[in-house]
């Protein structure tokens, strides 16, 4: 067997797939329902890639259709703002020599090998970057990311692909400032044929549009645009704007922000399957402008067009790109002008956030010395609080009713978790993610900070809360704290989670970059 694999290592066959042995796995950087994700180095070229394993067990129907969809779509989409699927490799679980039959379990029709998708490696994901303490996006930077997000999404939509899981952790960013859409595991081709019924169990709860929550099975690109609106607001607001714990609460949060729908503003809404079930008990007014009054005028105009309840009236990616927001000063910056991860340390300095930097230095040093003890690393918290006072500004007023998402959840738990991807500064890839910034733990929901991928296209199991609630643990938000612990992610920062361990700044995103005007 080794011999056959070795044959494959050297040269790339013109047809058929290479063996995964062509790559050296460096570390696991994610774990999803799909399978694990590894950072790996191609042995021959030294190129760093991400390997996403396609789990083949438990498949009575052969190669999973979800993987077929993803592969089909990724092979079809070639765009600078869409992650590139480089190739597909097979593991030596089976013979790579095609003359030998693949090993299959005679009883269960199980296929014993594994298949990996090989992706270009990206250093960060948007949520990870946004969660870095001390990192505050500038307005041109947010515009730059938003523009790339919309450009990539527009490309998907004109090619009749719905992404169906747009969220920060699926937007990967490299050190050149390029943003790429990733994780097409839920994506689907759509035709303009409205007869096709699609599932409404898609899109991570906080980014899920009202029509899906109301049970619509006929929908289109507008679902992705809702998610974009949520991300846009999140970038400006500093934390997720609609962190519902379950579907009814999610809808309610939407209604509180966008008003309650009726036939007047959303023709046909009463015919959506679950409308009567979730029908708002009392009418509420739209409060977007009121709640986000600190956003600049053009940002607010655009956001309002994205967060339109009626999908038919929601702005398209193409029209959003034409919005005043992108054509008024300050203009979106050139991606290449954006700070790289390493230099983002300096970036902070420039912002004269000296206090914070010192904290990070301490955190980093301590982390290096005692990587295992983060869960009990309290000293930095205080400064975290002072930081909070300093930057938090109006954020607190915004917490509609309950405290907002406790995004800085105790990721440090993951260190103790066998499942959790390894973290620690020494393991960072050269030039890769995680260099500065004070070690793991900021990526509360992505289990380790080894890079943008961590939970990116490959939701880490550590996140626990189901992305598509309704099936389990309704109390958990979709990007909640270290899952598996059942930690409700949206709880306030008080209580048992106040000890935020490795995150010296405190975990609330709001603290981290506060308000953008």
């Amino acid at each position: 067997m080794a011999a056959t694999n070795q044959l494959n290592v050297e040269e790339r066959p013109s047809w058929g797939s290479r063996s995964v042995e062509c790559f050296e796995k460096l570390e696991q950087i994610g774990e999803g329902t799909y399978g694990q994700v590894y950072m790996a180095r191609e042995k021959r070229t030294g190129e760093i890639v991400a390997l996403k394993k396609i789990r083949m067990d438990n498949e009575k129907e052969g190669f999973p259709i979800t993987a077929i969809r993803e592969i089909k779509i990724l092979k079809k989409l070639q765009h600078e703002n869409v992650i590139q699927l480089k190739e597909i490799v097979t593991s030596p679980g089976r013979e790579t020599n095609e003359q030998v039959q693949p090993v299959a379990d005679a009883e269960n029709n199980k296929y014993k090998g594994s298949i990996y998708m090989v992706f270009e490696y990206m250093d960060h994901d948007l949520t990870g970057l946004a969660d870095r303490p001390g990192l505050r996006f500038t307005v041109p930077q947010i515009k730059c990311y938003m523009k790339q997000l919309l450009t990539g999404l527009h490309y998907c939509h004109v090619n009749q692909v719905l992404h169906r899981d747009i969220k920060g952790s699926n937007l990967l960013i490299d050190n050149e400032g390029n943003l790429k859409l990733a994780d097409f595991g839920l994506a689907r081709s759509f035709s303009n044929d409205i007869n096709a019924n699609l599932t409404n169990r898609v899109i991570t709860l906080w980014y899920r549009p009202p029509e899906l929550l109301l049970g619509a099975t006929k929908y289109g690109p507008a679902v992705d645009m809702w998610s974009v609106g949520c991300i846009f607001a999140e970038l400006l607001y500093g934390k997720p704007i609609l962190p519902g714990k379950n579907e009814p609460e999610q809808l309610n949060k939407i209604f509180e922000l966008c008003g309650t729908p009726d036939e007047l503003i959303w023709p046909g809404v009463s015919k959506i399957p679950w409308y009567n079930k979730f029908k708002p008990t009392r009418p509420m007014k739209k409060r977007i402008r009121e709640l986000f009054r600190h956003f600049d005028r053009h940002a607010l105009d655009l956001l309002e067009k994205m967060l339109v309840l009626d999908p038919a009236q929601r702005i398209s990616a193409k029209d959003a790109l034409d919005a005043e927001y992108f054509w008024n000063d300050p203009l979106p910056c050139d991606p290449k002008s954006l700070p790289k991860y390493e230099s983002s340390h300096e970036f902070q300095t420039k912002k004269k956030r000296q206090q914070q930097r010192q904290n990070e230095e301490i955190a980093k040093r301590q982390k290096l010395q005692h990587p295992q003890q983060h869960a009990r690393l309290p000293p930095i918290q205080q400064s975290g609080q002072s930081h909070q006072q300093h930057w938090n500004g109006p954020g607190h007023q915004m917490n509609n009713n309950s405290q907002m998402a406790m995004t800085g959840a105790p990721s440090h738990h993951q260190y103790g978790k066998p499942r959790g991807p390894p973290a620690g500064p020494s393991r960072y890839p050269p030039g890769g993610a995680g260099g500065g910034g004070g070690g793991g733990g900021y990526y509360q929901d992505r289990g380790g900070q080894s890079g943008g991928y961590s939970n990116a296209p490959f939701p880490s199991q550590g996140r626990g809360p189901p992305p598509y609630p309704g099936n389990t643990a309704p109390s958990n938000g979709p990007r909640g704290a270290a899952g598996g612990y059942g930690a409700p992610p949206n709880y306030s920062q008080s209580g048992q989670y106040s000890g935020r361990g490795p995150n010296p700044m405190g975990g609330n995103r709001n603290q981290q970059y506060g308000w953008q005007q």
Partner: protein
Amino acid sequence: MAADFWTSSQFKQLLDPEELNVVHPLDKERGITAEDYKLIKFHISNYIVKLAQYIKVRQRVVATAITYMRRVYTRRSMTEYNPRLVAPTCLYLAAKAEESTVQARLLAFYIKKVQSDEKYRCEIKEILEMEMKILEALNYYLVVFHPYRSLTQLLQDAGMSDSTQQTWGLVNDTYKMDLILVHPPHLIALACIYIASVQKDKENTAWFEELRVDMNVVKNIAMEILDFYDSYKLMSDENRISAAMNKLP
């Protein structure tokens, strides 16, 4: 825009007709000829169509399945990839790829109904194993561009909407040949429209000229299709088919 035919692997890998006549060395050893290839692929295409009628899938799935099968045999031998198993497996995979999933056990069940010959029987696990091999042989390129997409529009534009059914039938028949591996799908569609207009005595020269496509290519494809119809009787001769099939393991 890259997700179109012109940037697809289907376009980049369009083959020369000569390339399709190359018999895999392993098949050569068994005495299988280029003519046998044609016959077997023709027979297997018909088999896929019949299976598809039982499991009730769209024509598009059938067309994709046959294309997969034809793509497989440009790179793999029939000796290793038994066409009797490749046929249902391609249908199985195409059904997934075209979002009309069919259960493997249903397929195994209908195989028995369609083909009484024992040699066609297969276990579910054989289908699943072959699926992996086919995916690999196809290099995971699962998207197929078909002539159907452009057909309706072109017919409308040519003022030939009344010939839709006839032209559609012609396009279906092109899958009994390797045309989809050799020509861009819109040219196949045009060739079928060309044949339909000649048969209807409809004067369409001006319309074709305005399209600014190479009419020689279109006419050549049309000739190939007509040649195929001429040889249809010979192709579907049971004895010849079974003689070719019997060379397989």
